[in-house]
């Protein structure tokens, strides 16, 4: 691996200063489960790594029934899974976080890192988009908020500018009778990258759907919001026909490729399957809330 320097700031300001340092070669080190592999492969060559795991704001999970969730960008996936509030209020996002890699990876990887890595196949990103999560970013020019659905701009590309740090993800408190779900398909039962990932969040009024948002992963250069699919459900009774139709609309918007993880044709089909399944799971949960 090429040579670089390592810094471990204790505050957001210090981290931003270090990330903004001359030569835009600084990158954030969080769980390291992507960046270290990319550096070994020579894909990324930062001259400085800034370890943000020591910054308190990035390590907290704060939930307030009114203002909702503030999820520190560096919270390890396993901590999310073990958090009862997360399991209760955001089961889909919690599942997504728990699907990333093995137990070993879970101990290190974070939702913030998963997002900043900018992979079209990231598991937590569709779950965040379905929940309309907002990324709270602090940089040399101050703070800004970016909807997660606008965060990833291409494979490995994001809106993050040099010197900027993703501090936390903010999600509104779930309305009554709403919930979310995330499913992915992988060839094995563990350790794989999603062939397709689907995140769904919806709100019910009795059996009538009043809001639904569906986000697709690994079927395009970035995550895709299946708007028509979501809107097609609004005002409708969530029956098999409606769900079937939403699945079809979702598979129509995806733009997958053939690769070693699956064919485009297969991915399009699976998008429909997982859309239907996540809708059923989310609906089931929403009825209980």
């Amino acid at each position, binding site marked *: *691996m*090429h*040579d*670089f*320097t*390592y810094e*471990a700031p204790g505050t957001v300001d210090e981290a931003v200063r270090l990330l903004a340092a001359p030569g835009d070669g600084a990158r954030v*080190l969080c*769980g*390291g*489960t992507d960046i*270290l*592999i990319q550096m*070994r492969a020579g894909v990324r060559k930062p001259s400085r*790594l800034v*370890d943000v*795991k020591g910054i308190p704001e990035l390590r907290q999970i704060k939930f307030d029934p009114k203002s909702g969730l503030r999820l520190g960008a560096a919270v*390890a996936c*396993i901590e999310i899974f073990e958090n009862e509030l997360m399991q209760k209020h955001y089961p889909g996002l919690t599942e997504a976080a728990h699907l990333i*890699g*093995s*137990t*070993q*990876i879970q*101990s*290190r990887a974070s939702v913030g890192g998963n997002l900043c890595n900018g992979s079209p196949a990231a598991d937590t990103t569709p779950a965040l988009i379905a929940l309309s999560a907002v990324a709270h970013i602090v940089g040399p020019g101050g703070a800004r908020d970016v909807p997660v659905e606008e965060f990833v701009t291409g494979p490995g590309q994001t809106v993050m500018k040099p010197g900027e740090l993703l501090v936390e993800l903010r999600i509104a408190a779930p309305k009554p009778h709403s919930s979310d779900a995330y499913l992915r398909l992988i060839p094995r*039962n*563990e*350790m794989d990258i999603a062939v397709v990932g689907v995140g769904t969040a919806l709100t019910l009024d009795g059996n009538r759907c009043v809001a639904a948002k569906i986000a697709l992963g690994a079927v395009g250069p970035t995550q895709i919001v299946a708007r028509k699919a979501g809107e097609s459900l609004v005002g409708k009774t969530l029956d098999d026909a409606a769900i079937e139709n939403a699945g079809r609309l979702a598979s129509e918007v995806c733009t997958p490729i053939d690769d070693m993880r699956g064919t485009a044709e297969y991915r399009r089909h699976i998008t429909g399957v997982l859309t239907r399944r996540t809708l059923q799971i989310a609906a089931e949960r929403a009825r209980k809330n």
Partner: protein
Amino acid sequence: MTHKTQVQCTINGEVTEFLCEPRQSLLETLRDVLGMTGSKEGCLTGDCGACSVIVDGRVVCSCLMLGVEAEGKDLVTVEGMAQESELHPLQQKFLEDAALQCGICTPGFLVAAKALLDRNPNPSEQEIRYALAGNLCRCTGYDKIVHAVLDAAKVMQEG
């Protein structure tokens, strides 16, 4: 020559200080700087688990952590599982149940299984399979490994 960083941490109960380059992984540091070759390199991408160590109670792949990140941490490696000359029940059961063949993945499995039993002393077969899914073994088909962990859990329960 690259500048080195001084790191202090606890490894298997011993306060340890070492110097390493930022680009040296914790695995490389353990093996090449500290001479602790029990943790094995299988892939350097976090996919095989042969380099598993426990950091502050969580099992991690030491190939995906930098040596400098160990500062202030509490580490357990396979070398720290046996107490004096007495094997950990997992080590004993791996031997008795023939849960190893070539043995290269064994340290990683033992460490990951220890991390599991430390949190869940009485896991089901499925819980064991889930917890060990990040550790690849190519020799055994996992059958005898799963049995060994079940047996070790039983022994530890009975105390």
